[in-house]
């Protein structure tokens, strides 16, 4: 383990992170058709051993944010400090130590594993990349990891297609853990899995967190999973965090109308047959042309003139520590 920074510094601190993509196919004669503002000024902190969930619908930028934090994309602007060290602007070589401590698990366990490598080699690959251990050491390490995620020694010579989706996600988790990360970014890790398998994988992730002191940046669209799994939750809409709070506070006392709408829209077992209710109208706008002012105003039941003109800042709300919301009417009673 590398020497840790001062104890009060969070494991990960993201400030004013922006990631824009050029829209359109590009090409020699193609016109510049605009900018996709995938992540548009996001700040958050993540402590050691903590789980922060990023929730939101498609186009909200949660996956782009995850990949930018994972250093897979270079940010357009902003700062990513990891273990007290600024990562933006570093070259490939300087990034490598941080890359080892930040690992990623993807949604689709079918396409994120190389189909032509046996599982043992897949799990060992990060060790090889980071030049850790000799051949024998690596073999032992792979065997230990396999055991930790519930795979057998005989499985190491088999290929990904011989495993079910849940087992493949276990392989992906073992691969991520091989190089002893302190932060694991999990992008919808259970969305592609069957219900009965989801809880197995979530339990495994929780056990490994306890055993290794992992911090999770957990991206999900499923509020039920997030509520169960996360310590803190950040809700994203069109590239920005609109509300962030400890999980219990967020679900008990949501301050942003979008958070309220998300919670209300989530189907729940045992609530009885659905009655047509207050359903959020309209579609999610394109991040290519986000509405002016508060990006949520065209769908918001509370929208006033001020919402159309100025974007609200993410500020303390709800009274509980660490609860922040970006809404001009965050302190008013819920309708």
């Amino acid at each position: 383990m590398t020497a840790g920074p001062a104890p009060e510094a969070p494991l990960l601190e993201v400030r004013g992170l922006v990631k824009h993509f050029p829209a359109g196919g590009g090409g020699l004669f193609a016109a510049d058709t605009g900018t996709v503002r995938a992540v548009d000024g996001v700040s958050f902190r993540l402590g050691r051993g903590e789980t922060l969930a990023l929730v939101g619908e498609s186009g909200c930028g949660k996956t782009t944010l995850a990949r930018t934090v994972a250093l897979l994309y270079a940010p357009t602007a902003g700062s990513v400090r990891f273990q007290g060290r600024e990562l933006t602007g570093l070259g490939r070589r300087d990034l490598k130590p941080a890359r080892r401590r930040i690992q990623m698990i993807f949604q689709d366990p079918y396409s994120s594993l190389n189909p032509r490598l046996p599982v043992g080699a897949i799990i060992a690959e990060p060790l090889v990349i980071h030049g850790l251990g000799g051949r024998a050491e690596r073999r032992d390490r792979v065997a230990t990891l396999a055991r930790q995620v519930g795979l057998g020694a005989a499985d190491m010579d088999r290929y990904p297609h011989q495993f079910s989706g849940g087992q493949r996600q276990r392989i992906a988790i073992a691969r991520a853990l091989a190089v002893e990360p302190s932060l694991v970014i999990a992008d919808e890790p259970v969305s592609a899995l069957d219900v009965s398998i989801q809880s197995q994988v979530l339990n495994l992730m929780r056990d490994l967190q306890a055993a290794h002191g992992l911090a999770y940046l957990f991206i999900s669209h499923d509020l039920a999973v997030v509520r169960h799994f996360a310590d803190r939750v950040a809700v994203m809409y069109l590239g920005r965090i609109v509300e962030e709070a400890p999980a219990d506070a967020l679900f008990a006392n949501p301050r942003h109308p979008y958070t309220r709408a998300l919670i209300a829209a989530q189907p729940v077992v045992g609530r009885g047959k659905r009655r047509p209710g207050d359903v959020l109208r309209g579609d999610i706008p394109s991040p290519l042309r986000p509405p002016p002012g508060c990006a949520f105003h065209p769908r918001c039941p509370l929208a006033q003139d001020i919402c159309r003109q100025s974007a609200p800042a993410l500020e303390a709300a709800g009274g509980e520590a660490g609860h922040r919301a970006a809404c001009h009417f965050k302190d008013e009673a819920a309708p």
Partner: protein
Amino acid sequence: MTRFLATRVAQSVIVLALMSFAIYALIGLMPGDPIDLMISADPKMTPEDAARLRELYGVDKPVVERYANWLMAALGGDLGYSRLYAAPVLDVLLPALGNTLILLGLTLVLSLAIGLPAGVVAALRPYSRTDYAINLFAFAGISVPAFWLGLLLIIVFAVILGVLPAGGTETVGGAGFWDQAKYLVLPVANLTLASVGGHTRYMRAAMMETLRQDYIRTARAKGAGRARVVLGHALRNAMIPVVTIIALQFGYLFSGALITETIFAYPGMGKLIFDSIMGNDFNLALVALLFATLVTLIGNLLADVTYAWLDPRITYR
């Protein structure tokens, strides 16, 4: 769309310019030049004569300079003079181009008219007896060498049966449209047989892929019958990849014509290019090859336009 077309035309001009230089340089690299041929034709020529001739024709200058001279002249409308045919290049080229376009056009129409329906029929009942029969013919067409097939056609229809002429474009003395048509039968048949198999296979593959799509199931769930599903829903989608392949094949067909035209002594572009290169007829070879490039480029442009017409998802900006 207009803007797209303008861009594509501009791109084509650039490609043509690059190709002209590449061809010019390549021909320049070939061993021997026209003066060598003149020397071998006239043993009494002295080295001094040869040097004078080289200077006269500009053959002694560096290739870039020669190319620049040629380009300026070409842009002024002077494509040069064919030494082999003792006529301006265009006068030689245009009739040959016309002949080849007739040959290729007929082949394409016939090959598509046979290949596409055959492919669709095969795709509707994959691995059935009909499918196997169609595949057998398609593979036979693809596998049999065109020159061998051409010779076979001549032997059977011209020599043994004597019903069709073996080569040329018309009977000496000319007997009108039907006479010329008779001369086209064998070369068109030869080229068609060589290309129809490919079209059948492409269409079959595209149609089978399309019939697996979700929207085909949607159409059936609406109560659409077989004909409506195939003609109304699948065909247009299946044509999208096929159009691309046909267009890309246009250049291939053009070169395929070279062999066929040589076998049937058909005075088209293929034969012209062959003769001009063998005869070191610089100017003619260069312009003929450029025309071949141009035809291929036009084929690709047509494919893009057809593509946009078939698939509304494609918007050309």
